[in-house]
């Protein structure tokens, strides 16, 4: 065992996961989004201590703005025996007003000088927005995020509607905020719940914001108790719509971010449905420059940041990416409009040596409309004349790599 060639003294430094965003250096791309985990000072500190690169303090407002919470506020979307595949909340913005938050910003900034200390705000009138910005700026905040997308409705314009559902309002309020912020970076947090998210992103840019956060929870009705017919969460006889977050919304977030990145030249902070390093890599690849997380932390705790960093580093080492920014946008050249997709003939190919004979593909193809698979003594057989190549059989097969789609022409 002796005599092995030895080159180094001491352990190798870990991979550099830092990212630069709007001129701010982040030690890694993982930020705690504006949510319960950032609503108390000591909890936010614990998150930063655990290794998160920054916090966005939960959305605050001017003194006297009423915030009347209703409990219980959370509900779960369960699937396949797993809890919290999606999470719903009927929370509102923070009960802590700007007088509390500005002090916290100052404390956090002095204790965690090298981390991102950001605050989220929501106002009604122009002077509210602008005084919130001014006071945070005075407190030494690194960045301001404006919540234009609370599912319970932003204040102002049209009660119950979100600011970011109107391009006009978005541009106007962004302008107010940026006017007060000056050099201080401003992010606008938008909603995916719009007809055309590109129009909104363009409005954010026109209003002068430095970047945007895409996106936020998605308005949803979390479920209905079929005995009482009261939806979840149930508050006596009543319920209301929730904001859906967590793994269930990841595909929506990917699309929202990709769509903005393809059409508007504006820095994006990605948020919504990210739980693992793989989710994060996917979101980078469609244009996000960093990742905000809420639900996965509420479920599994701050400690997940170690796993996010580990998985990301190991992936980057394996793929030879030197910087996180090298991954950003990697998937975008592969996204085209439907018209531009190649038209080819593909057929299902089933590996009989791997097939366990469950017949799930047979049922799927039969009732999914193409009748191209028949069962021969528990072995599925594809009829090429009937197979349209949709790929459903491949998706439903429980054995990995058993069914693939072969390109014929």
């Amino acid at each position, binding site marked *: *065992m*002796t005599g*092995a*060639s*030895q*080159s*180094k*003294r*001491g*352990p*190798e430094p870990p991979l550099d996961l830092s990212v630069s965003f709007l001129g701010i250096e982040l030690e890694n791309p993982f930020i705690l989004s504006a949510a319960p985990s950032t609503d108390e000072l000591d909890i936010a500190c614990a998150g930063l201590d655990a290794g998160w690169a920054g916090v966005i303090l939960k959305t605050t407002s001017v003194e006297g703005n009423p915030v009347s919470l209703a409990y219980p506020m959370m509900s779960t979307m369960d699937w396949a025996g*797993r809890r919290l595949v999606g999470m719903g909340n009927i929370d509102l913005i923070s009960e802590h007003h700007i007088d509390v938050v500005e002090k916290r910003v100052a404390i956090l900034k002095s204790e965690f000088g090298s981390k991102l200390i950001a605050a989220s705000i929501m106002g009604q009138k122009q002077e509210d927005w602008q005084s919130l910005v001014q006071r945070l700026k005075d407190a030494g905040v690194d960045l301001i995020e404006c919540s234009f997308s609370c599912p319970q409705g932003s204040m102002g314009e049209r009660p119950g509607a979100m600011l970011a559902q109107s391009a006009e309002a978005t541009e106007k309020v962004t302008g107010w905020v940026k006017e007060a912020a000056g050099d201080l970076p401003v992010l606008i947090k938008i909603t995916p719940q719009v007809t055309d998210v590109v129009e909104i992103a363009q409005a954010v840019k026109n209003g002068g914001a430095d970047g945007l956060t895409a996106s936020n929870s998605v308005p949803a009705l979390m479920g209905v108790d079929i005995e009482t017919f009261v939806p979840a969460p149930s508050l006596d006889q009543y319920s209301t719509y929730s904001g859906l977050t967590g793994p269930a919304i990841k595909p929506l977030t990917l699309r929202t971010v990709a769509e903005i990145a393809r059409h508007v030249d504006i820095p994006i902070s990605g948020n919504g449905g990210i739980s*693992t*390093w*793989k989710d994060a890599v996917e979101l980078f690849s469609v244009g996000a420059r960093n990742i905000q997380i809420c639900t996965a932390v509420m479920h*599994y*705790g701050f*400690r*997940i940041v*170690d*796993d996010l960093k*580990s*998985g990301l*580093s*190991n*992936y980057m080492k*394996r793929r030879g990416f030197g910087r996180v920014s090298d991954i950003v946008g990697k998937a975008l050249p592969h996204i085209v409009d439907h018209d531009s997709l190649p038209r080819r003939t593909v057929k299902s190919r089933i590996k009989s040596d791997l097939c366990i004979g469950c017949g799930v593909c047979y049922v799927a193809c039969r009732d999914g409309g193409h009748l191209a698979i028949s069962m021969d003594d528990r072995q599925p057989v594809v009829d090429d004349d009937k197979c349209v190549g949709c790929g459903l059989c491949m998706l439903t097969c*429980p*054995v*990995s790599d058993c069914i693939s789609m072969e390109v014929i022409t």
Partner: protein
Amino acid sequence: MNELLSPSAALREAWRCLHCWDAPCTAACPVHVPIPEFIARLRADDIVGAEELVRQANPLISSCGDICPDEDYCSRACILKDVEGSIRVRELHGFVTESAHAPWQRWKPWKAERVAVVGAGPAGIACARELARFGYHVFVFEKDNAPGGMLRYSLAADRFPVRILDQDLALMQGLGITWKTGACVDSLKSLLDSYDAVFYGTGRHEDATLGLADEESFLFSGLSFLRAWRTGSGESLAGKDVVIIGGGNVSLDVASTAVHAGAESVVLIYRRGPKEMPVWKREREHVEGKGVRFEFCTRPTGFITEGGVLKALQCQRTRLIDTGKSRLTPQDVEGYDFLLPADLVIGSVGMNASKDEDVELGWKDKAYLPVDENMRTKEKRLFAGGDLVSGEGTVVAAQSHGIRAARAIHALLQEVRS
């Protein structure tokens, strides 16, 4: 070797983990493998990251993934044990370590101090690795021709392939440890003179005696028997009736090896009943179906020979009575004695340490070497661990001693330096 989980079975099992806070499984593991954390990485498909977590805590990572008696440790502590069945932690550990092996980076010791480790069993290996990670010059002295201790020379060959141990040792190659094999240490005093600190982990290698007449001639040592078969020098037992005196895990390895050696019949006698046998479930499963006959409530009383050749083992039947002790006590059943035909009798009723050091260590009865909670002996710079101090233990427990000692040695040397 135990069968590995398939990737899909591992994933399903991993998803059953609740990711408990302050996980009792981790607390129950002697080296505190961060179990929910490695499982979380496994289910996020970061096998490399999962392996890293296990490897940092457990130097003999693949060996434990194969033969760790998790039923006494992590799996016993699992919150789901009485709910839907414990998470199969050892199997997930084994899956991770068989799917990814990352060698330690190549580096050189960067501290001035030199530490000697006596005995390259699990305790010594773990201690050496931990010391090397702190940056010390580590010299391991091993009497045998290769490191591994019991793992290499005693575990039944058909249960634990040595390649798994070698895989673990290969990962440590870059750490700059100097392995001196075929180097029997006979003076701790001189080691203490030439090294800044010494770890002593020589295990227990002497089979306990039974006190029968002519034992020296007719009782074969279980450890020698296992060793012969591990090293390829075992003689065929074809046509022979073999009786094994035992009851514990080691005697089951002896029994399965005797079957493997072609014995005509293999009988294992034990003085208590089947429920009292202190054996691990997997050891029991390993001998099941191999044709080993168990004679419970039986104790040996003498060898029957003809012209100097062994013919049978004389036995006495016992019955178990409750004497208020934690275990039932075997008592002879008057007039119930019988013969078991035997061409070979192998004894496997426990192991003792040899205690002939030239340093006064205050040995206790039954050969337990006394140490404090930091594994320090009476001698300030001498630390000890493994079977030597605990009695017959496990690979993971011996490693935990080695690691604890390494940390204490590090603390001591830092103290000396400052």
